[in-house]
């Protein structure tokens, strides 16, 4: 597409006088001016708001159907609860895997959404849906309003982010912070006026992203490369770089200080251990294979879940649009940023041994922006005098039609990811039966000690700490040694143990822990909960509550 090299020269956004006038104004005044500006902008703002509402409703439709969540979700909710007591632990264990921004976010949402569980779910939906605003802003900034609207519309119904915002997870907040960081960075990059406030805001958003998930570091790395380039080109000084870095690292720094206090080292993370000791047996696909699959936005087997490979139409529109931005000189440098954003937050995940299409969550925004740049035909200016307004109607119709088509045709993939990734949790590690059993215990066990093989889920539903039977997820130490189950439990004052199985046999849950059925003679079965499958993705699951004999 080099033929378009000279088709579009870079255009200033406004006459130079106006820009200089803008330079002198503070951002707040400029925002107020923008809001007060008469004319065509309000319909666009209303359109974006409607897209945001649609995104929330669409995602909430899926979130409402999710009854059981991932282990991570229970950690996040447990951490959100413990943060209220200025603690950062789950089940009595000081935590060192998930970072605190999302638990903080849950508490903030909980200020106006009642119920921790609902707030956590709604929080993810809200944060994910809110991405449409910076996406629209970036699209408008780089291309034009039509492109921004198209990108926002596409994101609103995008399958990966829709399906994975149905459970309390930090992906939505991460994507939002990265999109905000990208917006501020591009704003600074585009407005060559020597003011660094947007750059620092970008650093702040990136820093918060790093304090949300480790992938935030990839964003900072991406921006870092660009900053080094601009530093080399003389557009910013070392001082600016330093300030950016300090701002970006403050949130993580605070977390590191907490680690230092609690663990004696600032860089303690379960991820480090997990990466070092990951079971090679699961790594059926090498890094290059993972890179390829992520490039296609396909799920990564064997741990992936989606069967979709090329019916993800967002991909072809997104990649074609990004190619277009690279081909047109006027858009090229922003195109490079969008492509780098996509690759850093998407395919670059190949470095992590564990694979899931969910990891592509923060890479969806640049993909939709690329698609928006294509279907918005942003270089066509609509002016009453020169072009007539009818052309604007057709261009908008084209945007609405293509966005509509991609939204509708994305539905099977959304369902597929949702069913295989989220609904399938209903029989996982006790699933619905375990939830019911734990809620029963919460109401009936008083303060009696509880131990479980269900992980952090038990502590969440009990609303207090439950002991871990055996290690959990390779990083949580065992409170109760499996080989010494009853004596250990007795010594900790545990009265009930909660186990699970897929078979209706009290010996089955013990066998999952490699314990023989002879142990049954020393345990008293309190009750068993059964959750029949409500769909094709699950089977019947059982949760067992046993009473431990007094020591």
């Amino acid at each position, binding site marked *: 597409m080099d033929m378009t090299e000279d088709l579009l020269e870079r255009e200033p956004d406004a006459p130079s006088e106006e820009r200089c006038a803008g330079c002198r104004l503070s951002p707040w005044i400029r925002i107020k001016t923008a809001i007060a500006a008469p004319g065509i902008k309000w319909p666009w703002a209303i359109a974006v708001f409607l897209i945001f509402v649609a995104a929330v409703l669409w995602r909430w439709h899926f979130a409402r159907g999710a009854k059981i969540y991932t282990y991570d979700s229970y950690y996040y909710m447990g951490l959100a609860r413990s943060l209220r007591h200025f603690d950062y632990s789950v089940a009595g264990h000081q935590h060192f895997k998930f970072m605190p921004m999302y638990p903080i976010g849950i508490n903030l949402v909980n200020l106006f959404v009642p119920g921790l569980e609902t707030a956590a779910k709604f929080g993810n939906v809200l944060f994910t849906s809110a991405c449409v605003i910076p996406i629209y802003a970036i699209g408008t900034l780089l291309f034009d309003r039509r492109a921004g609207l198209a990108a926002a519309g596409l994101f609103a119904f995008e399958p990966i982010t829709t399906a994975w915002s149905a459970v309390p997870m930090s992906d939505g907040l991460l994507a939002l912070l990265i999109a905000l960081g990208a917006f501020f960075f591009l704003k600074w990059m585009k407005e060559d006026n020597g003011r660094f406030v947007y750059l620092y805001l970008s650093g702040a958003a990136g820093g918060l992203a790093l304090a949300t998930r480790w992938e935030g570091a990839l964003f900072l790395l991406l921006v870092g490369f660009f900053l080094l380039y601009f530093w080399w080109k003389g557009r910013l000084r070392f001082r600016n770089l330093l300030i950016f870095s300090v701002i970006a690292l403050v949130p993580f720094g605070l977390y590191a200080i907490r680690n230092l206090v609690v663990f004696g080292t600032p860089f303690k993370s379960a991820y480090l251990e997990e990466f070092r000791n990951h079971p090679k047996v699961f790594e059926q696909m090498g890094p290059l294979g993972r890179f390829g699959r992520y490039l296609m936005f396909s799920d990564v087997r064997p741990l992936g879940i989606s069967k979709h490979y*090329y019916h993800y139409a967002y991909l*072809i529109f997104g990649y074609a649009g990004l190619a277009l931005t690279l081909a047109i000189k006027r858009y090229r440098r922003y195109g490079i940023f969008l492509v780098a954003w996509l690759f850093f937050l998407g395919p670059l995940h190949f470095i992590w041994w564990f694979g899931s299409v969910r990891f592509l969550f923060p890479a969806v925004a640049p993909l939709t922006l690329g698609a928006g740049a294509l279907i918005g035909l942003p270089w066509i200016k609509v002016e009453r005098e020169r072009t007539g307004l009818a052309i604007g109607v057709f261009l908008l119709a084209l945007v609405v039609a293509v966005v509509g*088509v991609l939204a509708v045709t994305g539905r099977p993939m959304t369902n597929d990811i949702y069913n295989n990734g989220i609904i399938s949790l209903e029989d996982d590690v006790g699933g619905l039966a375990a939830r019911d059993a734990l809620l029963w215990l919460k109401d009936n066990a008083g303060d009696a000690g509880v131990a479980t093989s269900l992980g952090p889920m038990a502590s969440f539903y009990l609303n207090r700490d439950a002991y871990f039977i055996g290690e959990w997820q390779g990083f949580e130490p065992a409170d109760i040694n499996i080989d010494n189950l009853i004596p250990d439990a007795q010594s900790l004052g545990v009265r009930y143990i909660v186990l699970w199985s897929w078979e209706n046999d009290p010996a089955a849950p013990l066998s999952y822990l490699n314990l023989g059925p002879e142990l049954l003679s020393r345990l008293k079965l309190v009750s068993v909960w059964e959750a029949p499958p409500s769909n094709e993705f699950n089977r019947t699951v059982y949760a067992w509550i046993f009473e431990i004999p007094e020591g």
Partner: protein
Amino acid sequence: MDEWFRWSKKKEYLAVLVFFFLAAVLFTWPLILHVHDGIIGGHGDPLLNTWIVNWDARTVFTHPTQLFQGNIMYPSRDVLAYSEHLLTLGVIAAPMYFVTRNPIISYNFLVFFAFVFSAFGCYLLIKELTGSRLGGVVAGIFFALCPYKISQLSHLQMVFSPFLPFMLLYLYRFLKRGGKRNAILFVVFFAAQSLANWHYLIYCAIAAALLWIWVAIFTRQKNDWKRLGWVVIAGIVAMLIIIPFTIPYLRAHSRLPGFERSIQEVELYAAKGDDYERVLDVSVVYGDTPSPFKAGGIGYENVLYPGVVILILALAGLLLRRRKDDDLMVFDSVSFREGAVYFLILGVVGLLLAYGPKIAGHYNPFYMIPYRLGLLKFIRVPTRFFVLIALGLAVLGGYGTAKLAARSYSSRNGGWRIGQLTGLAIIAILILEILTFNITIHLIPTGRDVPEVYNWLRGRGDVRMIELPTEPLAGADIYDRDLRLNPVNILDFLYREGDSMYFSTYHWKTMVNGYSGYSPFFYRRIMTEMQGFPSQRTIDLLRGLNVDYVLWDWSWPEKNRLEEYDMRLFSTPGLSLVQDFGGKSVFRVEPGAVATAEDIQLSAVAPSAARPGQPLHLGLLANNTSDNPMISIEEEPQDFSLSFMDASGNTVLVEKDTYRPPFFIDRGETISLSLTGDKVPPPGAYTARLQLEGGVLGPRSFDLPIEIGDIPDSKGPAAMRGNVTVIGQPLPIPAPDGLYPVTTATVTNIGDTLWLSLLQDESYNLRAGSVHLSLKWSDASGAIWEDQGCTIPCDVAPGQSIDVPVLTRPPNVPGDYSLDLRLFLDGTGYFGETLHLNVQVLAPRE
């Protein structure tokens, strides 16, 4: 506009052709990797078309007079006329065929040719109408590669539409500028497209006629009227080129029943409202078919969803109007009227015709009037009129693109370069929306991978052969008339026959196998009989047909019958192994004597009473008295005359009509032939003189007493009484399956009602009011093999008895069976007593 292309015409055309070729490669991926050994759409229609185009390519330059006498479906004639003859395709594929001798390469060459030149024709058309190259590319891409066209990849004849836009292009040019060259090219492309596919004759005729009318409405100048006159002459010339190729079709139509499409069949394949929501499963965007879309795929006839992008572009093409500073051709009012508006009308006409006989349950005069006039009677699938919709949308989309590109405006550059970018982006968006990818390729053996037996056959000289065994057939209900072919698995059957036809392109020997748009009686009868192969009866049939070789494929029979077939193939007299080729063995059918017409003892049967004003059904009972089979491969209906003489010997009525000659009468077998007289004289006593006027059975004459009077018949409410008798118990049937004349029954009408026989409809079913003899096979456990029937040779008057030869398909498993014979009134039910016969079906070794 589009100054960006500063290339010479040659370079421009080359670039556009390369672009369309690359698009075709992408949309059909990975066909390009299997262009020599793979096809899209399975072994059915694509292999039929492979056979046709290679037959054309081989024959048209070597034996042009034999073009329609294809080597399949022996002994039928004009077999190429049973489907599209695809002559244009054969001519285009000929160089490829003669150079590579690979039928699959020839076929796939045509696939890519069709896509590339359909797109290119549309490109040139839009360039002519709007001056926009980018609009041309959009139109070309959509017309050539729209979802409907991709869904038709199993029907090459529908994909092959390149000359339709070329025809319109030169018609436009001639109407605008005149010129002999334009007129000649109009005729050439009209004829070329029409000779590619008869559907396109209709499309070309509609498109040309509509344009002629549309232009004529606005014509004021004398010169323009002159040109319109020349177009009429050019159209006549084109038709004169085309008409000779219709003769074999008309010939076949006149002698073969069921050659035209019934309304019921047409309705089945007519477009329905929700077909416009049907998408391709190989579509990148729509492949997972979310609601409200419906699932479709390659081979479907009703994937009519065009996509949203082309609809918006088409709307833009229609609705974006000229502004005062628009001086581009695309905004020219004449171009708009003669281009955009005309193609809108053409698309609407296509839409109305695609709905077939009914629109939302209501009579569709747009389809039915031409159907009644006989113009559409050969069309089975009205949805194929979607091609006209696709062309209309493509051209309107081209207009839309041209207008959007023209209106694209940049504050700095003044517009035109931005316009090109707009056009390119629209092309990209359109392609992405309708893109298909990863289409299933069916690998076909070619060259050295072709089974050795076919190369062996190539060196055999002038021989006839049949590939056996056949795919199992389900019951046909009635076997002694124009029976239907009813494979248990229609796709397996067609695929197997398709393979046989395809492999015949390596030896070109005359063969019984094959399939096409029409199955002649001979083919249906032989395939039904061959279910019993290798029985003595089937070998008699093959011998009578002068079939030299049976190619037996050991992978086709059921595994549990392999041993039985092995024993029978080597023990049945008249069959000898020629050579074994691993999985396939060639057997020779030993030649032998056949019976002639003189060996046939003929008697006529007629009702002793009939009703005035009703057709009269008579019959001939033909008994082969010789020790040899009698075969007639004459398809031509035979003439007879029926005259009625009153008591004084005066002839009061003479009627001439035709009857189907006998095809196969095995030694000792009696068959019945039906004859119908449409008129009878007024009430009274007559002698009906039936005269066969030569032909297969020679000249014969029969006098039959008949009384015409007002008696009730079986079509109306009546008390039906009758009985069935046979003399003795039938002999054991020597082999299972196939067909076998098990006995001759006598039916007697003991009621007061005339039994009508042989009211067959177009689907070979007996209509309500017909009386036939029901046959029910059941084994000791009571399990029924299948319900069958036997026609009664003629109408039966009260008190009359008629002999009924009972031809039946015995069970395919040897054993002792009960065969129940009972009279059956179609539309009402059984009547009379049931006659139980014990019949033994012998195992072959017995």
